[in-house]
């Protein structure tokens, strides 16, 4: 009689342990995928920001703009390019997805783009028919649009990571390992209205 009881209890305990182990691994794998998604979204955002800064520099150096405008654009774009090269993203990713304090620099570039590339200026630049200028305007427009998208997708992924990491199972069993908590990236990413169409 007591033999059967011990067998039953052992079986029960083993089953519970297997289920618990499976659930923990499952939760860890799910969190891992969410982290990967957030990292991927961050690197997409980064790539578009670099593209935007490079295209802006190209336009500034094209000679099609007046020197004051060109200098403003070049200044803001150089700042952005320098910040990316000084703080390579790989490093940020390793120590947990921080944007490296670039928010202000990128906001500044958005602002300068909006102030300088007004509807009139863009219409005039387009009318000149310079192929290189046209191309850099197109590249600024397309990368700025993708920056907007990538930032939202990234922030949405961050929200999901943070929600899952708030669960008690994840906290008690430290399923997140050493991965730092990702953070939302907030900066002004408005497109100049002339480039928004």
């Amino acid at each position, binding site marked *: 009689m007591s033999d059967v009881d011990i067998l039953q209890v052992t079986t029960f305990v083993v089953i519970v342990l297997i289920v618990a182990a499976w659930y923990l691994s499952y939760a860890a794998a799910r969190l891992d995928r969410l982290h*990967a998604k957030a990292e991927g979204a961050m690197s997409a955002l980064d790539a578009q920001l670099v593209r935007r800064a490079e295209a802006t520099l190209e336009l500034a150096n094209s000679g099609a703009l007046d020197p004051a405008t060109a200098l403003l654009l070049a200044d803001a774009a150089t700042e952005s390019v320098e910040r990316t090269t000084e703080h390579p993203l790989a490093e940020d990713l390793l120590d947990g997805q921080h944007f490296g304090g670039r928010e202000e620099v990128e906001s500044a570039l958005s602002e300068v783009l909006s102030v300088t590339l007004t509807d009139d200026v863009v219409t005039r630049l387009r009318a000149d028919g310079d192929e290189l200028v046209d191309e850099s305007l197109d590249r600024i427009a397309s990368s700025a649009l993708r920056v907007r*998208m990538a930032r939202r997708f990234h922030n949405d992924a961050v929200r999901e990571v943070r929600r899952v990491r708030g669960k008690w199972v994840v906290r008690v069993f430290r399923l997140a390992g050493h991965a730092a908590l990702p953070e939302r990236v907030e900066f002004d990413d408005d497109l100049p209205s002339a480039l928004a169409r």
Partner: protein
Amino acid sequence: MRIGIVCPYSWDVPGGVQFHVRDLAEVFIGQGHDVSVLAPADEDSDLPSYLTSCGRAVPVRYNGSVARLTFGPVTSARVTRWLETGGFDVVHLHEPVTPSVSLMALWAAEEPVVATFHTSTVRSRAMHAANPLLRPSLEKIRARIAVSEDAARTVRRHLGGDTYIIPNGVHVDAFDVAPRRPGWTGTPDAPTLAFLGRVDEPRKGLGVALAALPAVLDVHPRARLLVAGPGEADDLLKRVEPRVAAATVVLGAVSDADKASLLRSVDAYLAPHLGGESFGIVLVEAMAAGAPVVASDLSAFVAVLDGGRVGVTFEAGSAAALGEAVVGLLADPARREHLSREGRDRARTFDWSRVSGQVMAVYETVLEGAHAELAEPPRGLWSRFVRSVPGTGGS
């Protein structure tokens, strides 16, 4: 790019989501992309070559109305086969929380997933029930698109988080060049007004338009209201004044070409909807055709009209306000001319050339992120067992 698009509603039945998917697929095919659409459809009917049917749709009560959806093991197997043979770079799901084929595809997909939310139903029990059963699958979505601020608000309320807003598209040029019909064209003493939409669905507001007509007929006795759309109007017309019934011309369901001609011909297009609209594609079509728009002040409509700037809005449901707005507009040809010009301009924002470009930008952004992730294949039996839970995106 190889794109797989999933539409949850029956392809045989006309509807906003179906038209959106059809146009999007055709625009991308025109640009040289490889597109396959998966949707419920009657296999005996004439289907486009890019469409794969996942079975016949069944009418079911769902979220307060009857929807034609597919579900069950056979459909599920077809979805899996479509994904396996498709080899898609990106899978674009429409209405992913509708219990139909989009949800199944979300469950099964291993490809990067983009999802578009169309509804703005306040009482969206489906989205609410989605917690927490569907949470892990929803986490597979890398980019969430909403068709309007209203749809985005619904997503935020039920699922939380942000969406990127990309409006529905319209082939603006098709409306701009449609020929005018003499029978539908208004004259100064016999102006014409248009109503489009199901006539027997109270939400579309034909009742409001008919109730507003006496005020218009007092000033313009020879005015006519042209009603285009499927459904039986007899019941409604029996209950109105004889002169209103006489001034109402019921055209029935019309072809796309006739719809464009109708909007090109009339002096004003009326959108007296009472609610439940998340976008308002007909308003864009009317603007593209150059018809001045008189619309109820639903937030989705006001947004399409650029804050009400490119149309006349009135309090939703108020026949008196609609009558007053129409009489005012008919008395002011300069304003009609102005609205027509501004509306044409505004409609350009919704042209497929622009809308498809934005959708493609979403695909590219998502792919860039997906490629940046370290591809780490699961090692060992246990790891595979853990990761292969259906609906969680394991591979």
